[in-house]
Every structure is written in structure tokens, then in C-alpha cells.
């Protein structure tokens, strides 16, 4: 729940103090350290996982990933310098860019396994939907903050959902079911932090459950196929992995085997047969957590998950420090988006969530995801240094 202070008195004092304090001291150093720790841990893990992927160049992926991390860190620093109000003031442009990017993707996109998610930029592949997460957060936060007084009205909620539905649909049609779910989580979190009525929140939750039920079970039964067959198979497959071990659920069984085989202290980078012999598909991207679990064991993944927990906890703390509604909603939505991605990615490798192509933040090989997530941390820092 966000409220505006009516008196000048309460409003000016914290802002004045913020201006006096140096940016550096106000940076959330714990958050920075946690993110740095995950990135470093991720690079180390990736180096072990991908050493055999390219004959003759064991460091191919690590070097590229490190370069992306450096670009991301620079971007993060840049984002820290930009005042959050900048995004709030130009939220229409933000929305325009978001839609433009996503419309452009299927037009210019490169087709990989029948999906168009990437735009080729010379040596790099750019994945607009990853950056779209941050843009959606910034847009929604601004939109809801600007209509703060009318947040209880049904029209506000409807308008916010309606506007967010456009990028969501575009991503869904790429098709990228996983990222569309993350977008939905962002909308939910933004509305929740902004103060949408409980009655509306519960209606939305109910609606979400109903849509899921329709897409997965009722729709196919009456002949309406919203999801591609492979998407549905994977999602239904995770609920019953042993149904068809050779087909749709092969990935998930191999992944669970990899995680379990890791044991307490892991099988090391050369003993991890599931990863090294390609039983684990996409072991550097979507299934990187399973590879990590196989190579580094329960101890290794515990360290990783605790670092993630620390990042999310600090992000939630940033919400309490935010100087205005926009900043609070943005920080809350970023925190929840991270949680969603982590939970779905980790969950799918251990049979608790459907298999979707969501990367594990800061760890999965992929430039767009790495840079976009670091930019989001930059926004958090920017909010943090301009605290109340």
C-alpha cells in the first residue's frame, strides 16, 4: 500500500538528506556482494559444465559469459546513476520501446528450434524478451504510481492488465511460455505492491487458475489448443514424469537423475556423466541448475540458493527504503520477477515446475539474460541510493 504524504514537512526532509549523503555510502553493498558472488560462482560452474562442449576450446563459454557479465556490470553502474524518476516520466516511451522490440522479434528474429526469440546482431544474439521484463516492470510501476489515488478502482487494474497483456501475448506467441509466465508474475507483483484491493487480487488469482486449467486440460479436451503440443506435454509431463520416459518426460527424468546423483558433495566436473555425456539437454542454459547440482552436490547448490535468497531479501528491503510509490512498486516487482525465475528454473530441474525455457538469473549461459538481470539490479541500486 502506497500513500502520498500530504504535508511538505514529511516529504522534503528525507529527500534533502538523501542528496547530502554520498551515493557510495547509500549503495546496498550486501546486494552487490551477493550478486557478485552469484556471477562469480556461476562462471566457475559454467567453466566445469561446458569444458567438453567445444572440442579444443574448453573456455569458449566462460570467456563469452564473463564478457557479458562485464557489459552487464557496466550497464548496472549506468542504471545506478539514472534517477528512477527518469523512467517514471518517460513511461510511455518505455512502453513503446517494449512493444516495438517484441513486435520486431518475430520479423527480424532467427528461428531456433521453431521459436523466434532472438535477433541476430553480428556476433551476438539479442533476446528482447529478457530486456522486456525490466521494461515491463518500469512501465507498470510508473503507470500504477501515477494513478496512485485511483488504485482501488477496477478500471485501473483492468487498464494495467490490459496494457501488460500485449507484451505478454507477444512473448507467448514467439513462443516462449516461460517468459510469458514471468511477465504475468511481474503484473501480479506490481498490482499487489501498488495496493490493489484484496477482492481484486483474489479474483485475479482465481482467473489465473482458471486460465491454467483451460489451457492445460479443458481446452485440449474440447479441441482448443492454446499451447503447442510439446509445451503441454512438458507441463503435464512434470506432474507424472514416469508416464513416458522416452518421450516428453525424458528431459525431466534425466535432470532429476543428474540432481540426485550429485549427492551431498557433487561428482566434480569430470565425473558428472549426466552433464558430460549430454544426457542432460541444454546443460549450460535451461538445465544449468541440474548440472550444478550434479557437479557440486547439495552443498554447492545450497550456497547458490542462499545467495539468491540474500539477493531477494535485499531487494525486498529496497522496497521499504523507496522514496516514492514508483520506486517501491518497481523494486517489489523486480524482487518477485527474480523469485519467479529462480523458482521455475530450479523447480523444473527437480520435477516441481513445468519445463519451460527460463534461464537461471546470473548463471545460465546467455548474454541477454545476464545483462538484463544486472540492469535490474542497477535499478534496485538506483532506488536504494535515492532512498527516503
Amino acid at each position, binding site marked *: *500500500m*502506497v*500513500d*502520498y*504524504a*500530504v504535508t511538505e514537512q*514529511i*516529504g*522534503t526532509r528525507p*529527500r534533502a538528506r538523501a542528496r547530502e549523503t554520498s551515493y557510495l555510502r547509500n549503495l546496498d553493498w550486501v546486494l552487490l556482494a551477493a550478486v557478485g558472488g552469484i556471477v562469480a560462482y556461476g562462471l566457475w560452474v559454467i567453466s566445469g559444465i561446458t569444458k567438453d*562442449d*567445444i*572440442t*579444443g576450446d574448453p573456455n569458449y563459454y566462460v570467456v563469452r559469459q564473463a564478457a557479458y557479465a562485464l557489459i552487464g556490470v557496466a550497464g548496472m553502474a549506468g542504471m545506478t546513476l539514472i534517477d528512477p*524518476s527518469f523512467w517514471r516520466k518517460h513511461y*510511455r516511451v518505455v512502453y513503446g520501446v517494449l512493444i516495438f522490440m517484441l513486435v520486431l522479434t518475430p520479423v527480424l528474429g532467427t528461428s531456433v528450434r521453431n521459436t523466434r526469440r532472438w535477433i541476430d546482431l553480428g556476433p551476438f544474439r539479442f533476446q528482447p524478451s529478457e530486456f522486456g521484463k525490466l521494461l515491463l516492470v518500469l512501465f507498470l510501476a510508473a*503507470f500504477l504510481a*501515477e*494513478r*496512485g*489515488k*485511483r488504485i482501488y478502482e477496477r478500471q485501473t487494474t483492468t*487498464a494495467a492488465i490490459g496494457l501488460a497483456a500485449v507484451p505478454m501475448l507477444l512473448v507467448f506467441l514467439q513462443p516462449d511460455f516461460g517468459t510469458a509466465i514471468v511477465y504475468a508474475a511481474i503484473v501480479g507483483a506490481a498490482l*499487489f*505492491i501498488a*495496493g490493489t484491493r484484496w477482492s481484486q487480487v483474489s479474483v485475479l488469482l482465481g482467473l489465473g487458475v482458471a486460465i491454467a486449467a483451460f489451457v492445460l486440460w479443458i481446452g485440449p479436451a474440447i479441441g482448443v489448443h492454446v499451447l503447442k503440443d510439446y509445451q503441454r506435454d512438458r507441463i503435464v509431463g512434470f506432474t507424472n514424469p514416469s508416464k513416458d520416459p522416452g518421450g516428453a518426460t525424458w528431459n525431466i527424468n534425466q535432470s*532429476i*537423475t*543428474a540432481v*540426485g*546423483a*550429485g*549427492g*551431498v558433495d557433487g561428482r566434480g566436473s569430470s565425473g558428472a556423466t*549426466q552433464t558430460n*555425456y*549430454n*544426457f542432460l539437454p541444454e546443460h549450460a542454459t535451461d538445465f544449468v541448475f541440474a548440472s550444478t*547440482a*550434479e557437479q557440486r552436490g*547439495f552443498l554447492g547448490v*545450497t550456497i547458490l*540458493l542462499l545467495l539468491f*535468497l540474500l539477493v*531477494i*531479501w535485499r531487494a*525486498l528491503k529496497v*522496497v*521499504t527504503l523507496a522514496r*516514492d*510509490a*514508483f520506486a*517501491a512498486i518497481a523494486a*517489489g516487482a523486480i*524482487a*518477485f520477477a527474480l523469485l519467479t525465475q529462480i523458482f521455475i528454473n*530450479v523447480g523444473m530441474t*527437480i520435477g*516441481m515446475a513445468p519445463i519451460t525455457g527460463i534461464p537461471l538469473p546470473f548463471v545460465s549461459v546467455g548474454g541477454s539474460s545476464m545483462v538484463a538481470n544486472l540492469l535490474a539490479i542497477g535499478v534496485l541500486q538506483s532506488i536504494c541510493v535515492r532512498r*527516503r
Partner: protein
Amino acid sequence: MASRPVPIRPGRFLPRDPRVDAPYRLTPQLMFRLGILGFLVLAAFGVLFVRLWSLQVLSGNEFLVAAQDNLSFLETKEALRGPVKDRNGRVLVDNASATAIKVTPAFLPKRGQYAELRRLTRILQVPLSDVTDQIEKHGDDRLAKVIVKEVATESEVRFLAEHRTEFPGMTIEDTSVRRYPHGDLAAHILGYVAEISDRQLEQLNGYKLGDRIGQAGVEASFDKELRGIPGIELVRRDSLGQPKARPETKQLPVPGYGLRLTLDAKLQRAAQQAVIDGINRAQADEKWYAKAGAVVALDPRDGAIRAVASYPTFDPKVFTSRRKGALDFLTNSDVAEASDFPALNRALAGRYPPGSTFKPVTALAAMQEHILSPYDSLPCTGSYTVAKQTFKNWDPGVNQMMTLPTALAQSCDTYFYQVGKEFYDLPPDRGQPLQKWARTFGFGRPTGVDVGPETSGLLPTIKWKQATFTKKTDPCCFEVDRLWKPGDSIQLAIGQNDMLASPLQMARFYALLANGGKLVQPHLVSAIEQGGGSTTGPAQGSLVLRSYRPAAQELNLDPAAIDVIRQGLYEATHSPLGTSSGVFGHFPVPIAGKTGTAEKVIDPGDGMRTEDTAWWCGWGPYESPELVVCAVIENGGFGGEVAAPAALQVFEQYFGKQASSFEVKQAD
């Protein structure tokens, strides 16, 4: 919470709240909601931790075993295919051991696999595209091996064994391949073995990707019996996909059953040579389009096929080599056409106008229908005119009255034109008895021989004409062409015009004449046997599991009618004016049979022209028949000139006797 309404200017999209810059307060409500979020976060991580704990700490060992088992593969080991032998136990196909080079797609390096495959295929001298196509075909089944070369040479194997580590994913395996000790002998009947195709995988049950299965001939028709039961081995592999230790046998392969064919290898060889000699004879006679032919020899008592020759043929060895272009005659229609379709088994699947060899069918049908009295004489003249249409006799100079035996012996066309006209003039309520009887005698339908493919031939009927000539297929003249005209019956009587038959159908009918009215079931496999291994020479100690003796069908024909025809066919080979008496007259064993010279329009590429299909069908010995032979030389000219001598060669081999002398005659 202030309740003053915020003024909103109408008409503007998404109006801005004017007081947004105001700082905000951290309200208890927001703290409550943050608390809920925090609880969600803890719950989510808690759930993940619990699940990871249960997977990794509590059941880690079970999954470790599962992961290790992933590296041990249950592989099937193909059973030794059963041998195929001729009726005397001579081995026609058995197995030879070979060394195969295979790759497992899953173990190929992720990058650089094409470089590796290119190098491997260059060493083995096989086309790279073959291998990549196979890998593509295997799709997601990355653990199923792909054969790079089925029979690698000793030096190739030695080189690859030494450089094993440079080819991750490659395996060198002992295997067996089909061996054909007699080269092209009965190649069409034996068929070949090759990797299962996508379509077969869909249609057949009990096979899996990468299986080798019979693709034609007996290998295909009796694949289930020949293939045996594959064994199962547990193989542990290292990271290069190389087997680490001796495979552990889980189930021993059970060798396939053997097949005993009705073929006689020596007679088969003679029949193949007879076709070639027949073609050469036609070529010597300047019949330049004579390039193909077929011979069928069967036992008229039980339908056992003793020899099936079809030329051009091929050496089945090509199927085990991956030599570039070796299989083009099967896969490339241009190459197939240029080499006269060597894969086509003309004896069973060739469709030819039967010409005069069909006359006994007409005669028998006419006598069964009581429209022909065999000893009443009909005029045999140079031509026969009906409804302003003139039909010529092959010999324009003849002019005499003939009985049926003489008409058969001299192959008088005009005699049979009159019989054809009789059939045409029958009242419509009698149907089409000539076709009905021809069908009863096995024409226009498959013979049901146990090794395909075969053709049904074509038996023209009123119904067939109406279905064939429609507005769509024949826009200008279908209304006339679809009618059954007198000429249709007249031409059918001498096996011309639309009528088509395979040599096998024809041989089956002559078997009926030979055995006195029983329609035999032609067959090639006489027994399924166990044991006997792949020994050469006569079979020893093999156990017959199942023998095939398909029953002949008694047609209850008028024995007198058959006798008249038999007499006519004996005169054809023995009376001075008989069409093939010069060929068979001096052969010590009495032979009876009929020549045929069927006109056929062909287009060899330089325009349409009419060529003659040369036929001879008959049996011997005349009184107690043991062998029916049908010979066809495509575009070979007169049946009496090229087909009859080819048939004689088969009889000579069968009876082990030579004709003291023979002369050919340009006779239909």
C-alpha cells in the same frame, strides 16, 4: 487516506496524477503485503531446499546408480539370419562375418562432428551425405547407432582401431552380412537385406530403428522366420562411446530359421542362361530392342516353381557395399530406365500381351461354353473381315479348312477370330464367358505366389473399358472407346489388344493343361527348417519345422476338351507344319507347347514402333508332365524363333538330354 477526487481531463489517454512527485509513506498495509511476499519467498526456497535434500542427500545413492546405468546400454545383438537353400540343399544365401563401422550420434562431439564424419567417410570411401541423412533420420534417438560402412576392409579396420581416440562416438563391431555364393543366381527371388525404412517402421510391428530387414524377395516375405530373435547385451561405455569391458550377455540371440526353396540351382542357372541366349538370338536376328526377357519353370503337379529367371538382373552383393551409385538402379528412375529396370522381376511382375499362347484359353473356354466343336472344320484364311474391319492372319498365304488341333498347331489367327466373334455374338444374358473362364484359369488376378511382388495382369472386360475410358482420361473419344466392340472379342481371342499376363500366370495355365484341369498354386518356399547352419553342400541334420504344399484347385473341366488342346499343342511341336516342331521335334523327351508372337507398341525413345513379344509355353514329358516352361523375350520377334529355343535349353537341363538337332522357324 485522502478522499479528494483527482480531476482527470477527459479525452487523454492514461492521465497523470498531478501529485505523484509527493514522497510516500511506508504504510502498515504495505509492510503487511511485503511480509506476505517475504513469506512467499521463504516458502518457495524452503520447498526447493526440502526437495533438494530429499533428492541429493536422502536418495542420492539411488540416483547415482541410475546415472551410472545411463552409461551402460542394453544393446540388441542381431541374430544370425537363417540360410536359404535350393530344393537339393545347395546354399543360395548364407552369412559371412564382417566388420562394421558405426557411429553413435549421442557420443559425437557437439562441435566439429561434421569434420569428424567427413574424415571418417573419406577414409571409408562412403558418401558423407548418406551418413548425415541417417543421423538426421534417427532424430532424437541419439543412442541408436548409425552404420557408416557395413563391410570395412581389413586395412580400414586396422587404421581406425589405431586412431580410435580421434573418432569419438565411432565403434568397430563384428557383424554378419549376407553372402551370395552364386552371384546373381535368382537375385530377384532371394531379394536383399537393408536397414529398415521410415515407412516400414511405421507399418510393421516388432521392428526398431536401425534394424536390418528383408527388403524384397524371400528375404522380405519370410523376414520374420529368417531374422531369428535378437540377443540382448549390456555394454558399458566410456566417454568416447567405446565399450569398456566385454559386454555382458543378458539374452543369447536365437539364429533365424532356414528356408528351403522349390528352386533348383542348376535349372535356375540354365534358365537365366536361356534368357540371355534368347536375347542374343533375337539380337543376331536384328531385333535391336530385344534387351530383356523371362523364364518360369514349374512343376505342373504341385505348382512348385523350379526356376524363375528375369533379365536384366543384378548381383545382390551391391546391397552390402555402400559404393556410390551402386543402388541407383533401385532409387533413381532415370538410371533404372537406362538399364532396363534390372530390379523388376519380369517373370512375376512383367505384364506382356500373351498373343497366341492365349489361344488355348480361348479354345478351352469356347468348348466349355459349347460354342465350338473341336473336330468341325473352320476356314483358315489370310484375313478375316467383320464390320468393315479386317483382321490379318500372321501367315497371309494360308487357305484351308482346319480342326481345332490343326489350328492350334499352326496357330491360325483367323480360326480364332471366328471363335472370338462367336463369343461376341452370344446374347448379353450369357455375360462374358471368355473373360469368366480366363479369370477362372488365373488371368487378371494375382496367382498368390508366396514371394512377391507380382502383377495381376489385365483381363479386359466391358466393366474395365467403362472404368478406363472416361471423360477425364479420354476427353475426345471416350464415348466410342468405352464400348465393347466386335474387335475387342476378336483380338482377345488371340491374346492381343488390351490383354496382359505375366509369364507366371501363363505357366500356371499351361500347368492346368498339363495336369488335366487342376489350377495349381505356384510357390517358391517348400519348407522352413531349423539347424543345418550355414554349411554348404547338402543339408545335414536340419529339421523341417513346417512344409508348404499348397493344394491345387480342381476345376472339373471337360477332360475331352483338355485332351483336344493337348493334342493340338503336341502337334504344334511335332507335326511338320507345327510352329515349334523344328525346335522340339528331335528332342528325345516328348514336349508339347505353343508359340506366341504378340504385337506391342513400344516407345524406345526415338518414336513409337511396333515390336513383337516372343513367347513359348509348354510342358514335358507330354504324357506324364513334370515341368512346365514359359519363356518370354521382350521385342524378340517370332516366338518360334527365339522363345522356343530358350525353353528348350531349360528342358535340356532338366531332363539331362540334348536335342539331336534343331532348326528355328519364323512362326507365330
